[in-house]
């Protein structure tokens, strides 16, 4: 029925990028190939994914969020993750302070009063209907901003959305009169947002996207190869996220309140808890910017006002175990991808919680210095973590808006996206100044084929005939234990320890704890081919190209830079 309406001709489209988050959503568009996140009529770029009905009037975003305290019975929040899911497989934890999800024939619905009047009957709305109403508000806001009706969007989704969830989202959007050009995964949208910066050169790199949201944290390892992105591993964590940090602050201040007020625990009352949650989140955000923040709630419980402060150091202390949980999560995904922290070139911090300076600092500590930690507190040029996904979606939307829907469908078909990725690197052998064989990677592991890469390597100083040896290679991590301290007889020292005072032995323990050194080294594997370039002139250079076909056949070409001819050879699959 709405088919014709929701699939406009490519020329008639007005497109945006949408992040439809569990906590917040964003809308973005592109001007001159640059993505911009749109502020809605309230001035918000992060728009709470919340709908609220007061006297039949619909509110969304920040206004709806404010109603969580006073109008929780008619406010729906944290519903995105329920779309396309059965009631039995949803986690209603975060809906406790708003309308609870209910089981209607196995699917998820919410019951609330969305009409005016004392005697208005409550409606039971499916999560799809709620999503449609919310998306409609986003689209309206974007249309108003852009001055024309938005017709189509690229929407970001978590990497673990299944087909049913995707279909439900597309249907919900269609019902809101929005054509979904494409659903793209959230972490890849973040990578695209960074890679689209004009100064960025496309490089082969391993990127970790730590998307730390409100109710979940999703960490993804992406191999970025010649501008193509392949997800190597993912992890989804519902235990360590923004809400966990809110809870740390809620507990902290609730205890303080109880101490001041004869043990009254404000967490036991739903409304007080809602107030605590609201203020805790605001305080937490404030602590990302400044080193001190207030925490004030009027009439927190039993009519008693509460006002306190907290500094960042204290916050980081009480939230330490949560922060450490993020570290472990990131490390576990890298391991799952079969990689080491030393393999990671870039860490993108995405999502609201990624604003937290401590988290970025902790990541800085687990990765080597060479890893680029892209977060506002570590890199001044970092993009706002809350805007990454919407920007990525907008860029993708503008990229494909001219294509027919059928064309997009065929291009994103699994038959197109499923391709072999080589396991080992392919490279050329060179010699270092000390005469050692050194592997120079040309095509990196996990590169999707077909692929072609080129390097330029110097010939020996005096030129002449040179050998091009094409080999496979792989990395391993070399661990060098610290040299034991040269303070003589250790066993003797250990024996005297008993006699010595405790402080003494503690001190020596500390001193001995020197860190082991870990480095990534290339190991030369099987030889694929040899070739010769003859008569290279003094100081000359050689350009070597390796081309791996889809069937894994390899073509090698080499020639002296600036000279004619050269060699070319083929290795059949």
């Amino acid at each position, binding site marked *: 029925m709405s088919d014709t309406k929701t699939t406009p001709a490519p020329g008639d489209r007005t497109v945006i990028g949408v992040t439809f988050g569990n906590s917040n959503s964003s809308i973005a568009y592109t001007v001159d190939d640059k993505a911009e996140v749109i502020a809605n009529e309230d001035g918000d770029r992060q728009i709470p994914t919340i709908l609220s009905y007061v006297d039949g009037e619909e509110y969304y975003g920040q206004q709806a969020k404010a109603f969580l305290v006073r109008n929780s019975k008619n406010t729906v929040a944290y519903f995105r993750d329920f779309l396309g899911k059965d009631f039995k497989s949803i986690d*209603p*934890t975060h809906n406790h302070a708003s309308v609870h*999800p209910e089981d209607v024939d196995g699917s998820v619905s919410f019951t609330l009063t969305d009409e005016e009047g004392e005697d208005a009957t409550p409606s039971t709305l499916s999560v799809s209907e709620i999503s449609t109403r919310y998306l409609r508000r986003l689209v309206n806001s974007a249309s108003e901003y852009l001055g024309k009706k938005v017709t189509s969007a690229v929407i970001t989704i978590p*990497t673990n959305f299944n087909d049913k969830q995707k279909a439900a989202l597309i249907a919900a959007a269609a019902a809101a009169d929005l054509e979904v050009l494409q659903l*793209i*995964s959230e972490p*890849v949208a973040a990578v695209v947002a960074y890679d689209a910066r004009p100064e960025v050169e*496309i*490089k082969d790199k391993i990127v970790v996207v730590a998307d730390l949201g409100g109710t979940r944290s999703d960490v993804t390892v992406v191999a970025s190869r010649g*501008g*193509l992105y*392949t997800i190597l591993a*993912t992890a989804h*964590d519902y235990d360590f996220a923004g809400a966990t940090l809110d809870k740390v602050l809620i507990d902290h201040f609730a205890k303080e309140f109880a101490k001041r007020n004869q043990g009254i625990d404000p967490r036991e009352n739903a409304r007080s808890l809602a107030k605590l949650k609201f203020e805790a989140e605001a305080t937490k955000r404030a602590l990302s910017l400044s080193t001190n923040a207030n925490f004030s709630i009027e009439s927190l419980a039993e009519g008693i006002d509460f006002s306190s402060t907290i500094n960042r150091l204290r916050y980081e202390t009480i939230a330490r*175990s949560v922060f450490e*949980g993020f570290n472990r999560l990131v490390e*576990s995904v890298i391991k799952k991808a079969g990689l080491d922290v030393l393999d990671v070139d870039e860490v993108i911090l995405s999502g609201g919680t990624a604003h937290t300076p401590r988290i970025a600092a902790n990541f800085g500590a687990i990765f080597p210095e060479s890893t680029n930690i892209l977060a506002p507190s570590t890199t001044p040029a970092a993009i706002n973590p809350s805007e990454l996904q919407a920007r990525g979606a907008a860029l993708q939307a503008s*990229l494909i808006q001219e294509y027919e829907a059928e064309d997009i469908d065929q*291009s994103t078909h*699994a*038959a*197109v*996206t*499923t*391709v*072999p*990725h*080589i*396991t*080992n690197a392919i490279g050329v*052998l*060179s010699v*270092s100044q000390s005469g050692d064989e050194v592997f*120079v990677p*040309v095509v990196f592991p*996990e590169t*999707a084929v077909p692929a072609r*890469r*080129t*390097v*330029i*390597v*110097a010939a*020996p*100083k005096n030129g*002449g005939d*040179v*050998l091009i*040896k094409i080999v*496979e290679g792989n990395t391993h991590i070399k661990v060098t234990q610290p040299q034991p301290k040269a303070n003589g007889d250790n066993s003797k020292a250990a024996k005297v320890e008993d006699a010595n005072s405790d402080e003494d032995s503690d001190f020596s323990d500390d001193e001995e704890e020197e860190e082991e050194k870990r480095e990534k080294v290339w190991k030369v594997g099987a030889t694929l*081919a*040899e*070739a010769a370039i*003859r008569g290279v002139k003094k100081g000359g250079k050689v350009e070597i190209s390796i081309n791996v076909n889809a069937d*894994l056949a390899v073509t090698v070409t080499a020639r002296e830079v600036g000279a004619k001819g050269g*060699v070319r*050879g*083929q*290795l059949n*699959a």
Partner: protein
Amino acid sequence: MATALVSLSLPSLPEGWAAEKDFKPIGKITKDGATQRTIEPVGPHFLAHARRARHKRTFSEDDRIQAQERAKNVEDVDEGEISEPEDPMMLQRDAKDWKNQDHYKVLGISKYRYKATEDQIKRAHRKKVLKHHPDKKAAAGRSDDDNFFKCIQKATEVLLDPVKRRQFDSVDEEADVEPPTKKQLQKGNFYKLWGSVFKAEGRFSKNHPVPQLGDDKSSKEDVENFYNFWYNFDSWRTFEYLDEDVPDDNENRDQKRHVERKNANARKKKKAEDNARLRKLLDDCSAGDERIKRFRQEANAAKNKKRLEKEAAEKKAAEDAAAKKEAEEKAAKEAEEKAKLDREAGKKAKEAAKNAVKKNKRVLRGSVKDANYFVSGDAAPATIDAVLGDVELVQGKADPDELAALAAKLNGLKLADDIKSVWTEEFKRLVATGKVKESEIKAFSS
């Protein structure tokens, strides 16, 4: 993509390298050298890829399914059924009594316990939340009793905090393996029974890897290593979990300090008891460990063997020394006897030589007498004197060998002329050798 520039240099072509068109294929990338993965259909570079890959083809739903099946899955398949059945008694637990609950059992991962990964704990938690969230029960019209849900939350809180988890694991008796009884040991396999005890104890080790008990065939070194490690076991086990609650209250500081002190002492005591317990386990295990007995016997046997060998060697050395001494003495004696004999022989030879000289001298003298002093008729005393004088001169000047040679020439000669010519010859020879001067010769002077 930009071309990478490398600051190393290529090797020179080795002497004698040759190939057709200067290219020598050697290996290839096999199918195992690649993994089917899904590239994300995002970004400008993907558009180019899609254009190449599609070739204006149209793919069907079947193609999609096939391709998806080929691709390596990077998402874990989760949210399966909770595998461990839930004990109805456990569901009735009072959350206030969380300290005494079995957190692993509450989350349905009691078969993993200290071995459960953080990821397993998170998944188990999520499964339980999906099933037991009180808001879901209430929505379904069931009671909104959230007691067990609180147990779940508490279990998760403990198990996802590495410090708290260690405290709980420290006192998680469900993970203990009781030492085998005598009866069990009679029937069962010693190494299996005790092995699992130490495997379980190993969870408290600060050091890794933890050596295992091994079996009958373990080497002496491994067995020694095992007992050494365990007798010096460095354990992280703590007993904070069993602390009495410290009153969280500003008013009563003394009371608070008192409880804290009490807890600290209790922890210390339990730790000491635990160390003693482990020591006893080791004592018991090692006492029954046949390998130790065997190694001891073997060591004893080896020691005995060594001793015997040493004794034999000593004996042999003594014998050798005695024999050597005897031989030396014998040799010395023989040498002495030989020297004596030599001496005696020398004496005889000397005497013989002397006699020979005497005899020869007699021959010399006799020869001139036989030749009648080279005159006919009675020889004048002066002539006799002169001739004998010359004979004596020769006897005095010539050595015994010359005398013997001369005597041999003269022996048997009867004719005076012959005798004279021999003598004349001899004088000539002696003058020539310088032993005799011409002037000294009287009768035979030429």
